[in-house]
Every structure is written in structure tokens, then in C-alpha cells.
């Protein structure tokens, strides 16, 4: 069984929901990332979304754009991110890692080359924000062959027929974007999210994660009551930005936010 499936199965047995933090690899410097990942797992994270820095993160807001710029200022490339995953795996063989980024960094390596290296490093899934299902037939085939889940986004504006196609092509989990906007946007409407998730449910048994607009314990808790996973990014990346000049504090400070959300979700 894949680590992602295994993780959701364990959570279901325990009656808990997945807490899925996102951080950008190499932000604010490469040495921070692996200790930060371990610390987040210790604080209660179930799956890790690791952002691959890209110069033009079009679907992200200013918070993650700046995180990419900090990471790129140290030259964090996709291959460096894979090295970080491999290093993380030396002491954690259980927590799933999903890479999240933009297609161009993967295209440059070549799909096959990327898949082989990513699998060897211990990557479990990939979410390429700018690769919708219509354009991803080759991509899915190569990733499937390497046993890497291809995770897709669904949006409030996604119509029924596309929900169906995304559910057929994706694996691992579905990432539901809770609101119209970029990452780091305003508050979300939990009732509207619940309604849409019901619609998605009719097409798949895959776990449904919800991201965008989750910024505190209360919103994490609210979302955990309607979804299988709570994805949180900008609020963590913001904290990292505030601590960019004191990087040794980042693992502990970010973990505090995770621990708070964990407690709220499990209460």
C-alpha cells in the first residue's frame, strides 16, 4: 500500500482527519527545510506538501511568491528538493511527501527522469498546479508507472463533468480549493465547501483535502468537520518569512501553529 493510502487508512481507524502543512523547500534557506519537516510531523502533521520553488508561481499569492524568491536566492532547484526528501527519509519512512509546484521545473528534467529520481528519493505524490487533466495524459502514465500519485485540484468553479474527469485521473487525494483566489486569500465559507464536497463525493472514494483560506485553529477545526484533510500553507509561510533572519527558531515556531491546529481538529 502507498504511504498516502496507508496514512488515510490509519487516520480513519483512529477517527481523525489529516493535517497537511505546506512549506516551500529551501525557504528561507536550504538547511531549514528537513528539520522543519521533522518538527511538523512531531507536532501532528500527517502528510507534508513540499513546495518546489518556481520563478513565476502564477496561482499563488504574494506570500508564496516571496517564499519562492527567498528559496531561489539560495538556488534551490528541483533536484535539491529531491535531495531534501531523501535526507528526510533517512529517519522517517512513514510520512507521505507530496511535491507541489509548477510544470516547467519537471519538464526540464523530463517526466521519466523526474519520476525515477523522485521515487528513489521517497516522494509519494505530485501536484503540478498548472497541469490540468486535459494536458496530462503522458504525465499520468509516467507517474503511475513509478507509483507516484498525481494529485489534482478542484475549484468552486469546476463543473460536474470535470469533477468526474479529475476524480478518474487523480489518485492519492483530491485537493479542493476552498475559494476563488490565490493562496493566502481571505476567509472561507465552510457551508459552501461542505456543499461542494458532497457533489465531489458522488464521483470518488478518494480522500478530500481542503486548502486556501485556512489560517487559524478555528478554521482548521471547521474544515476538518467536513473534509478528510486540512491543508494549510500561507499562515506557516508567513511565520517563516517573519523569522527569516532567525532561521533556527523556524521549526519550533511553525510547529506551534501545527500543534494548535492539531489539537483543535482532534478536540
Amino acid at each position: 500500500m502507498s504511504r498516502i493510502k496507508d496514512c488515510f487508512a490509519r487516520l480513519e481507524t483512529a477517527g481523525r482527519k489529516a493535517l497537511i502543512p505546506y512549506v516551500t523547500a529551501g525557504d528561507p534557506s536550504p538547511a531549514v527545510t528537513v528539520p522543519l519537516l521533522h518538527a511538523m510531523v512531531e507536532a501532528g502533521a500527517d502528510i507534508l506538501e513540499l513546495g518546489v520553488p518556481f520563478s513565476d508561481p502564477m496561482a499563488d499569492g504574494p506570500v508564496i511568491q516571496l517564499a519562492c524568491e527567498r528559496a531561489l536566492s539560495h538556488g534551490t532547484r528541483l533536484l535539491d528538493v529531491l535531495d531534501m526528501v531523501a535526507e528526510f527519509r533517512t529517519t522517517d519512512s512513514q510520512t507521505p511527501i507530496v511535491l507541489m509546484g509548477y510544470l516547467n521545473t519537471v519538464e526540464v528534467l523530463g517526466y521519466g527522469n523526474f519520476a525515477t529520481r523522485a521515487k528513489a528519493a521517497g516522494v509519494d505524490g505530485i501536484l503540478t498546479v498548472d497541469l490540468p487533466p486535459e494536458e496530462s495524459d503522458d504525465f499520468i502514465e509516467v507517474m503511475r508507472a513509478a507509483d507516484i500519485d498525481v494529485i489534482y485540484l478542484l475549484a468552486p468553479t469546476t463543473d460536474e463533468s470535470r469533477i468526474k474527469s479529475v476524480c478518474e485521473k487523480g489518485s492519492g487525494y483530491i485537493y479542493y480549493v476552498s475559494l476563488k483566489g490565490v493562496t493566502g486569500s481571505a476567509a472561507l465559507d465552510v457551508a459552501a465547501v461542505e456543499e461542494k464536497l458532497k457533489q465531489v463525493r458522488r464521483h470518488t472514494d478518494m480522500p478530500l483535502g481542503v486548502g486556501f483560506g485556512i489560517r487559524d485553529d478555528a478554521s482548521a477545526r471547521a474544515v476538518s468537520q467536513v473534509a478528510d484533510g486540512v491543508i494549510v500553507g500561507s499562515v506557516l509561510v508567513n511565520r517563516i518569512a517573519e523569522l527569516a533572519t532567525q532561521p533556527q527558531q523556524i521549526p519550533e515556531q511553525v510547529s506551534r501553529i501545527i500543534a494548535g491546529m492539531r489539537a483543535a481538529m482532534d478536540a
Partner: protein
Amino acid sequence: MPTKAELAALMQLPDDRGHFGPYGGRFVSETLIGALQDLERTYESLRQDPEFQAEFDKDLAHYVGRPSPLYHAERLSRENGGAQIYLKREDLNHTGAHKVNNTIGQALIAKKMGKPRIIAETGAGQHGVASATVAARLGLECVVYMGIEDVRRQALNVYRMKLLGATVVPVESGTRTLKDAMNEAMRDWVTNVDTTYYIIGTAAGPHPYPKLVRDFQCIIGREARQQSLDQVGRLPDALVACVGGGSNAIGLFHPFIEDGDVRMYGVEAGGYGIASGQHAAPLSAGRPGVLHGNRTYLMEDDAGQILSTHSVSAGLDYPGVGPEHAWLKDTGRAEYVDATDDEALAAFRTLTRVEGIMPALESSHAVAYALKLARTMREDQFIVVNLSGRGDKDIHTVASLDGIDV
């Protein structure tokens, strides 16, 4: 050169998923797919609609001032030697560039879709001005994203946009130029998609933009083709146009695709020279990748990060290019070359002094290459150069290179 059948096939592109060969497509986040599908449906129904076409043609005639002249630059041709040079005078359009052909068309779509707000990205500011202009005319709210570097370079156009009632948002992220303005405009669109229409200014971006921008700009090539037949009695031997994103070039080239004897030259910004690495010439020196919603030639590093570009002209300072150009290059139907900053500046001065026509720095790249090309041709041959915009906006750039503060 492709065969007749291959040329006919090129004319039919893109396919229904927006592909030009391996290029184009729709590489965007799920959050934008719905909006692009809406736009595609609306546009496909409007392009078949004679009433919409009539409205567009009427605006082009009475608001833009079309047809634009095809001017035989006799003195320039004589002094330069070789082929006759004809200038397609897009600089004489209302607002001073070809950009308005597209903004008129897209604003009509926005109106049909009932969107009260339009947004645009701009480099040189010509597309921003053209968007602000149509917004003023139709009473739409208009927000223009512009890299802060370009805000500085193109102060005149920034003020023009403000006078027209638009809000200009300076973009400070990334390289602070056109590509970053496009990122910000996409972010705005995804956030305000219910109320907002995004007028992309070049023939790039996710499907259907490369197609619809091309369709609106094709008026340039259709007129130039007919004017060549009327004024010279035959089709030109060559077409020359500058290529940033490539909207003026595709507008000129596309109606000539099946005229296999007409050679096409797209001129990219060579900056300090291709060898310097400081340029904006993805077709000449880049490779295929994915950016801004389409697969096309890009300037990128070994890790797939987009490189910063350099050109003296803000409108060409872009690391990608429209996907149809990428395919015209690979199929061999069009050739892509470059002109450096210095060559463009020299052409700016030459055209100004010899013909009394002051071209935009973007268009000066096309003029620079046409002058070189003409000298390799016979006097009885002729070249149509797309003079895509006028140079008033660039006077302070040229003056400051002369050490003069205007």
C-alpha cells in the same frame, strides 16, 4: 518550406484544445479553467455571429481609423539600397499602436459577457493604454498591471492610463517587468473572476487567448495583403515584424501563411547581443517549456526557472512568445532573427530622419532587420514591415541615452 497541404493545415490551427503542433494548450490552475471555458464558448459563438463582426468592423473603421495605410518608404528604400520597403502604418491607429485592434475586440466580448471590470497587463504601456481607452469608451472599470521597472521606463503611458481613468498597479515581484505583470493580472482574475474580464495583450497565454488575439490582429495582414495587390499588383516578397509576445507579427503573418512565396521574418529583441545572454529572444536562443498557460519557447535556466530578459524596449522584454510563432518556427514557415538594442536605436533614428516617421522602439527592431534584409534583395522586390507603434512614448528613453533630460 512546408508543402501546400501542410500550409493549409497550419491555417486551421489551433485545434479544439488550443494546440499549435506541440505548443499552446491550456496550462493553468483548475481555478482558471471555468473562466477560460466560458470565454471559449462565448468567443466561438461570437466569431460566427455576423452582428458581432459588423460591430467590430465598424469600431475599427470609425474609432480606430482603419484601414491603416501601406506606405511606400521611397526615400528610405533608395538610401538603403535593395528591395523596396513598405510600412504597414499601425502607428497611425487611435492610441498609436496595433494593440487597440485586440482591445476593441476583447472589450466587445467583455460587454457581451456582462463583465463590468477589465484588467490588463502591460509592458511598454501600449496595451495598457489601449485597454484603458476602450474601458473609458464603454464605461468599464479598468485596472492595469505593470512591472515597476516599466512604470519607470514608460512614465508617459502610465500618466495616459491614469488620465483615461484606469488604475495602474505597479508590480514589484520577480523581475518587475511584463512577465510579472502577467502573473499579477492572472492572480487578480482568479480572485475576481465573476466580475472581471482579463484582456491579454499578446497572442500568448492559455487557450483561447492566442487564437482570439490573433483573429483580432489579423486585420493587419488582411489589409496588407489587399493593399499589396492594389498598390504593387502582387504579394510582397517578405514580411518583417517585431516579436515580443508576437501579436503584431502573427496579425501580419497569419493571412499570408498559405502564400508560400512570401517569406516571413519575426525579429526578436537581441538586447546586448545573443551571445551576451542579455536579450529577450526565446525563439532564437531559448527552448520549449511551459509558462503563462501555454507551451512555447522560453528563456529559462537548466532548472526550468524563467530567466530575466533584457531589451531597450519594454514591449519586447518578455521571456516567452506566442505558441503559434513557436510552431511556425519549427515547421519552417517563418524565420526568427534578432536585432540588438543598438541596431534598433539606429533604425529609430534613420526612419525618423529619412521619412519623418518616429517608430516605437519595439517596431524599430523590425525596421532594423528590414534594412539589412532589403540590402540582400533586388530593387524590384518589396518587403512589408509592420510599423506596429509610434515612438512618442520612447522619446525620453532615447533622450536619456543621448544624455539629455527631457
